[in-house]
């Protein structure tokens, strides 16, 4: 692991979907086992570049998420490496039994990309707003579950996954996201990234909540409250050692989920601290369904903004 934080919060140079396309092209060039699976959302995830370069290794299966999981299992039986994409709720909820049995239980490997994480599904609304995907995939034994904070991390993780044989879920924002890491940063799957040190509290976040947590930490610092911030991009297996260390170091832990507070990162952190008690508060979607609206409205609606994080820290100090 070698990470460098960006100095200021700006939209990342590249959309997450373009990172997906470009990284997959690179991987497929070097590894002929790489196969891309889509379910009529290629236009949305912009993988037409991959398709042009590797038409025979692109399967746009149609609107058949369940079938897609099963077909991926078959491809992997023959040694191919399936990369599956759909919107996060369709990649998990819609095809869960197929994911669970044909891939998980059958001990077959694939990388499943779930896009439009949480409130970033924005105007697609309640049917399309995944607040439960992490909870679902965490329940598949041995599955590795991650959420990407920005394109630099996404590219690095995709590259590492190609060298591993595992069933993994990678939750992403589909379009623009704030850049968190400098180009060239590398990550270790299963290891949290400490972005900031402070003794008053520890904020544990993933995905879009990482940038929000960092912003909140700056506001808190202005008021003399110093918090640690951890990017816990691997939600399963979670970095227990790091959590225990920060449980001892700080007064309490605040988790930040762009997801239902049930089943997501917050739950995973609580479980990891089962035998290492410390005060834990979960900030996230409070057991509600999604709805339509612009992302900034939704972040306010579900109380996920940096100001909400500031408030939660202060209330619990």
């Amino acid at each position, binding site marked *: 692991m070698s990470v460098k934080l960006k100095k200021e919060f700006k939209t990342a140079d590249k959309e997450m979907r373009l990172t997906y396309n470009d990284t997959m092209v690179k991987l497929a060039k070097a590894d002929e086992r790489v196969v891309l699976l889509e379910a009529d959302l290629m236009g949305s995830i912009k993988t037409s570049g991959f398709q042009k370069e590797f038409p025979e290794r692109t399967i746009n299966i149609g609107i058949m998420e369940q079938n897609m999981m099963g077909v991926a299992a078959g491809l992997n039986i023959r040694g191919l490496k399936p990369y599956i994409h759909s919107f996060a709720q369709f990649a998990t909820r819609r095809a869960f039994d197929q994911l669970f049995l044909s891939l998980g239980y059958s001990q077959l490997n694939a990388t499943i990309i779930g896009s439009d994480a949480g409130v970033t599904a924005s105007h*697609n609304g309640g049917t399309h707003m995944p607040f439960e995907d992490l909870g679902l995939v965490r329940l598949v034994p041995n599955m590795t579950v991650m959420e990407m904070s920005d394109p630099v991390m996404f590219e690095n993780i995709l590259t590492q996954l190609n060298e591993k044989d595992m069933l993994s879920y990678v939750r992403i924002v589909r379009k623009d996201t704030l850049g968190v890491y400098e180009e060239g940063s590398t990550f270790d799957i299963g290891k949290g990234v400490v972005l900031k040190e402070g003794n008053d509290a520890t904020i544990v976040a993933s995905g879009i909540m990482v940038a929000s947590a960092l912003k909140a930490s700056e506001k808190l610092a202005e008021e003399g409250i110093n918090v640690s911030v951890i990017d816990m991009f691997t939600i399963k297996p979670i970095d227990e050692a790091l959590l225990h260390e920060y449980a001892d170091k700080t007064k309490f832990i605040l988790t930040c989920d762009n997801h239902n507070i049930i089943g997501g990162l917050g739950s995973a952190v609580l479980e990891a601290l089962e035998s290492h008690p410390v005060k834990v508060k979960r900030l996230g979607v409070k057991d509600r369904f999604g709805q339509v609206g612009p992302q900034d409205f939704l972040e306010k609606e579900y109380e996920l903004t940096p100001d909400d994080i500031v408030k939660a820290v202060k209330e619990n100090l």
Partner: protein
Amino acid sequence: MTEFAKRVRIEIVRMLVKRGFGHLGGSMSIVEALSVLYNNEMSIDPSNPDWEDRDYFVLSKGHAGPALYSTLALKGYFNKQLLLTLNEPHTKLPSHADRNQTPGVDMTTGSLGQGISAAAGIAKALKIQGKENRVYCMVGDGELNEGQVYEAIMFAKHHKLDNFVLMIDENKLQLDGFTRDICDQGDITRKIASFGLHTLCVNGHDEAAIKSAFDEARAIKGVPTCIVLDTIKAKGVEFLEGDSSNHHVRMDEEQKRVLLDLANKWEGELA
């Protein structure tokens, strides 16, 4: 284009332009079917959307919400002004149809393949309850990719749901392009007929033809009817018809102007 269909299209254009993006193609292709359903075919009471003895309509291809909302507003289910709130925070009109938000929407849809099962369930309930109400369901041709659609079709046939009319909007396109290029489904009419449904194919932009198809469906006893609607995605917006990227349109200022001009032109033709 009939006057009502024109009015619906005007509203669709204006609501999508207001937001700047939306599911234009699949909304435009079902306008004539909705016009016949809500003006001629279904037994409804817009002042009482929850009326027990109404006929039901399930928009299984829930992303075509704008077409349904425009139709419902013009029929008086709610104020037309509401149309411009499409997709706004706390709107009653979300991009995908939602039975808990919008008066007149009978089922929540948006995850493709699911609406048809609920529609078949309503039809079965009506049979159990000894009621005469009818159930209509609109499925997209891309949506036919989902296996669940065929599970629902087998259910409807087995349970002799002759109060159930399945409509398939065969506009030949789905999100990523032509249905035949993604997963060729062959002759949809023959395929559905082979499941035992009374199946016919009509021009989905010819209201008279749609009407007579519904009449035929009413006369059929013991099996559900499937009406395959031969349609054009984005029908009416000529520069987008047949364009494989007309599924979800994000408009620049120029496109907005062209679309509004088109709506104004249609409005002029009505006066």
